[in-house]
């Protein structure tokens, strides 16, 4: 029953009356109205709060499933849909419950209550079911979370690994490029530079250095660094402990930055030098390529030192060390794969055979700095050898040219020296011949003749010095002429006799009667040969006798003429002379016989002899002459102190009777001529100095000439006649120059051979004077003050020349 002023909240109830029963509950009178009145008054504050809260709760409860549905619909992955449905139902019902509860704050009908109850019941059911479900679901949901975390970690790890692989791939690429660079050149410097540069770039190093073993093998020399291109002189002994440490393993070894091998780094006040790593680089020789496991067998290593930047706190990572080892060929290359995609160790395979097939099987080229270096080294070696050969060729060529120049120079020198030597020789010969004509005691005459003959011989010898060089060049020729063969022997023996008698040696000469008296050959050289041989016999004999025999060798004895390499071939025009010189002297030991004909070889058994006694060209020259005369010379001796025998055979041409007589006549004429040439010779002397005039006159008178003296040119020209053979002109006169007189005389007497000979009397022999004399055509000059010899010399020369001219015409 309603009290009156409360309206029934139920819409169904239109009645306004609400009654209260005995209990105090208000109820609607109307039986159709089942409105129920809430217990508390609707305008109670608390009730109001509850009312508002319920509104919100209902709102929230309705919106939550909406949100859920919306977001689940949006996301594609959600495995627990039915849970969602269930959960949604639960929430909806809870919301409904609270929503319906809103109506119960005021009077409400029974329907609402029923609905409320229904909702609550449903809600309860669903909640229980959900609660039961959640027992299963929540652990699942939680495990999803952990799995998610796990997966995240895994993903992170994979990322990291990917990064690593990428860097490795990167370095692999670098290394391949490095290989390519290295293999593309055979220049060692480029290889090494590229290696170092690329390594530095790849690994971001501060410094890279390479120490190569020095040629001595005892130290390592700093060969390449990046900062300083070609350092000089830095060496490190190879026995350093750090070096041994690096060389003993094929891994890259960390080195202390203070060790001497890490020397070339910039010392610009770094406190923390970067870490240093060293690795050995094998240096191969060509022979190593044939062996299977080559890196282990090579003995020579170079040391590669790599330095990280200082003050960077970087450290050497494993993969970086691996890279370094691979580059240095110490690690089997992992960066190659064969066709099947496996990582494979290809190094031994490559070294066995460098066939293309195998190489292609192995995949891309290995990093072989060592191989490249060795190739480069081999090429360098061969190029160096070639350069050396070229240099040697050039040097040889130069030496050859120098030798030729030297030979030319020697020949020139000899020619000049000979001239210089011949001039005094000539003087000696001329003067001795003049001396011969003076009054001499027989003793003196013999001496003078010996002097003359010796000097002739000496002059011949001087010629021979030149000849020997010509002999060696092969351009020598014998002077052939007719001569008296018997006389040659006699002269030689006569020459030797004085010396031999001093030594108490007896010299005997035997000339076979069937030996021709005259022969055609080189008289001087033959004389020289005989003299040399006989002289040696005398020299090397202290006592006893020397016997000289000359004969014609018998036919049978041809065979034993000095050995198998001599063949005597007699012919109609020629004959052989065999000369044997036997002495009882020191003898020759058998060992020395082969050396006798060597130039300057001393006979060792002659220890006590004066030095230089055995040395010389004598026998060598003799042998050469004898060879030129198509003969042979050999020595026989029974031993030391048993004497020796020298035998030689030469070939001479038989002298023609006619040639002989002509020669003899000429010789006689010359002899006659040289004897008496001054007696009655009509001469004219022109000199303005009274004293000089007198001296000259006296001198010429002494010589036997018929002398006329004049004191002026005019007088000279006045007096001179065809009869005067020689005119002496003083060319230092003031009035009329001797030269002018000479010119005039030449003009007067034009036929050359009948003109008087003109001799200039000079006070000095300077160039101007000589030239003037030559210009006017003086036949001779003589220097004041002159001696008898000088005068004789000049005159005899002039007259001989004149005679020869006359004889020829």
């Amino acid at each position, binding site marked *: 029953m309603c009290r009156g002023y409360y309206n029934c909240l139920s819409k169904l109830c239109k009645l306004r009356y609400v009654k209260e029963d005995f209990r105090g509950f208000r109820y609607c009178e109307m039986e159709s109205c089942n409105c129920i009145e809430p217990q508390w008054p609707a305008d109670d504050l608390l009730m109001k709060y509850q009312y508002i809260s319920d509104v919100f709760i209902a709102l929230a409860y309705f919106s939550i499933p909406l949100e859920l549905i919306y977001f689940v619909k949006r996301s594609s992955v959600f495995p627990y849909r039915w849970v969602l449905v269930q959960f949604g139902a639960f929430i909806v019902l809870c919301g409904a419950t609270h929503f319906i509860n809103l109506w119960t704050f005021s009077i409400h009908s029974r329907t609402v209550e029923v609905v409320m109850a229904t909702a609550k019941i449903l809600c309860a059911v669903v909640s229980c079911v959900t609660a039961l479900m959640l027992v299963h679901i929540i652990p699942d949901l939680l495990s999803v979370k952990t799995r998610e975390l796990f997966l995240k970690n895994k993903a992170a790890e994979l990322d990291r690994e990917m990064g690593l692989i990428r860097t490795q791939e990167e370095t692999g690429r670098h290394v391949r490029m490095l290989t390519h660079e290295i293999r593309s050149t055979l220049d060692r410097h480029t290889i090494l530079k590229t290696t170092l540069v690329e390594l530095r770039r790849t690994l971001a190093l501060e410094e890279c250095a390479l120490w190569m073993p020095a040629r001595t093998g005892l130290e390592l020399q700093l060969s390449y660094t990046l900062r300083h291109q070609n350092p000089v002189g830095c060496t490190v002994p190879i026995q350093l402990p750090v070096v041994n440490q690096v060389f003993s393993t094929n891994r890259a070894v960390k080195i202390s930055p203070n060790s001497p091998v890490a020397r070339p780094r910039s010392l610009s006040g770094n406190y923390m030098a970067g870490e240093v790593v060293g690795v050995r680089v094998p240096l191969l020789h060509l022979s190593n390529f044939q062996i299977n496991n080559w890196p282990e067998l090579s003995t020579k290593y170079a040391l590669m030192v790599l330095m990280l930047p200082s003050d960077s706190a970087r450290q050497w990572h494993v993969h970086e060390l691996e890279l370094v080892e691979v580059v240095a060929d110490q690690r089997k290359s992992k960066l190659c794969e064969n066709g099947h995609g496996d990582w494979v160790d290809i190094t031994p395979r490559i070294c066995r055979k460098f066939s293309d097939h195998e190489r292609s099987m192995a995949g891309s080229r290995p990093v072989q700095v060592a191989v490249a270096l060795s190739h480069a080294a081999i090429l360098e070696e061969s190029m160096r050898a070639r350069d050396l050969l070229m240099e040697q060729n050039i040097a040889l060529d130069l030496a050859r040219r120098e030798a030729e120049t030297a030979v030319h120079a020697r020949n020139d020198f000899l020619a000049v020296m000979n001239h210089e030597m011949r001039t005094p020789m000539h003087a000696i010969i001329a003067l001795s011949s003049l001396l011969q004509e003076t009054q001499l005691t027989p003793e003196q005459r013999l001496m003078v003749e010996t002097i003359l003959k*010796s000097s002739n*011989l*000496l002059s011949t*010898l001087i010629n021979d010095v030149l000849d020997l060089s010509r002999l060696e060049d092969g351009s020598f020729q014998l002077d052939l002429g007719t001569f008296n063969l018997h006389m040659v022997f006699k002269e030689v023996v006569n*020459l030797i006799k004085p*010396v031999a008698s001093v030594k108490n040696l007896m010299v005997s000469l035997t000339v076979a009667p069937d030996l021709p008296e005259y022969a055609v050959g080189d008289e001087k050289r033959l004389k020289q040969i005989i*003299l*040399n041989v006989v*002289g*040696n016999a*005398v*020299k090397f004999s202290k006592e006893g006798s020397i016997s000289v025999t000359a004969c014609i060798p018998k036919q049978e004895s041809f065979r034993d003429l000095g050995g198998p390499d001599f063949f005597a071939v007699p012919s109609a025009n020629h004959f052989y002379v065999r000369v044997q010189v036997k002495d009882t002297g020191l003898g020759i030991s058998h060992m020395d016989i082969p050396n006798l004909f060597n130039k300057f070889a001393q006979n060792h058994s002659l220890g006590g002899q004066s030095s230089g006694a055995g040395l*010389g*060209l*004598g026998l060598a020259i003799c042998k050469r002459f004898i060879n030129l005369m198509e003969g042979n010379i050999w020595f026989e001796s029974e031993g030391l102190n048993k004497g020796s025998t020298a035998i030689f055979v030469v070939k001479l041409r038989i002298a023609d009777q006619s040639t002989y007589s002509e020669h003899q006549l000429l010789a006689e004429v010359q002899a006659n001529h040289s004897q008496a040439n001054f007696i009655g010779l009509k001469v004219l002397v022109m000199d*303005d*100095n*009274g*004293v*000089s005039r*007198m*001296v000259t006159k*006296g*001198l010429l*008178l*002494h010589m036997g000439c018929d002398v006329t003296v004049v004191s002026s040119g005019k007088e000279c020209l006045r007096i001179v006649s065809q009869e005067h053979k020689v005119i002496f002109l003083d060319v*230092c006169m*003031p009035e009329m120059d001797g030269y002018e007189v000479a010119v005039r005389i030449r003009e007067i007497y034009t036929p050359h051979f009948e003109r008087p000979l003109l001799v200039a009397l000079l*006070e000095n022999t300077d160039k101007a004077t000589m030239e003037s004399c030559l210009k006017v055509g003086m036949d001779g000059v003589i220097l*004041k*003050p002159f*001696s*008898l010899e000088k005068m004789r010399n000049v005159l005899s020369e002039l007259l001989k020349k004149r005679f020869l001219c006359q004889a020829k015409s």
Partner: protein
Amino acid sequence: MNVEQLKSRFKGHYDFMVAEKFLDEQFSQLQQLQDESTPDFAFEVVSLFFEDCQKIFHDLDRALEQPMVDFKTVDNNVHTLKGSSSSIGAARVTHVCIAFRSFCDEHNLEGCLRSMQELKRETALVKNQFEILFKLEQQLLAAGGSITLPVKPSPQSNDHPWFM
């Protein structure tokens, strides 16, 4: 005094003259030219030389006294004197003549005068020496000896150069 002593005296004086450079080898040449037909050849030549000297000195004195000295004449005279003295082997005189000539070339009057004095002195000296020498020679020849002055020492060689 016997021949040997006279010989040694003569030789001694000759050696002295050579040592003092009064004489050189040329005189021995003159000596050599003496034979039977000309026994006094050397003496005659030397006498002629000194006669010439007198004449030349006279000419020289006159030339040098001139206000304008004709050096050419002086030179010619000295040249003649030089030739003569070298012909007989009077070495010192020749040397003075050579110096005299160079003064003439330079037209050095004072030098010429000095040389003149020196020349006269030297000539007088060598004349004395010659007189002594010839006297000694005469004494020697009178005693029956003879002497030949060495022309030039010949080189002694004990080696037998053809033994090689």
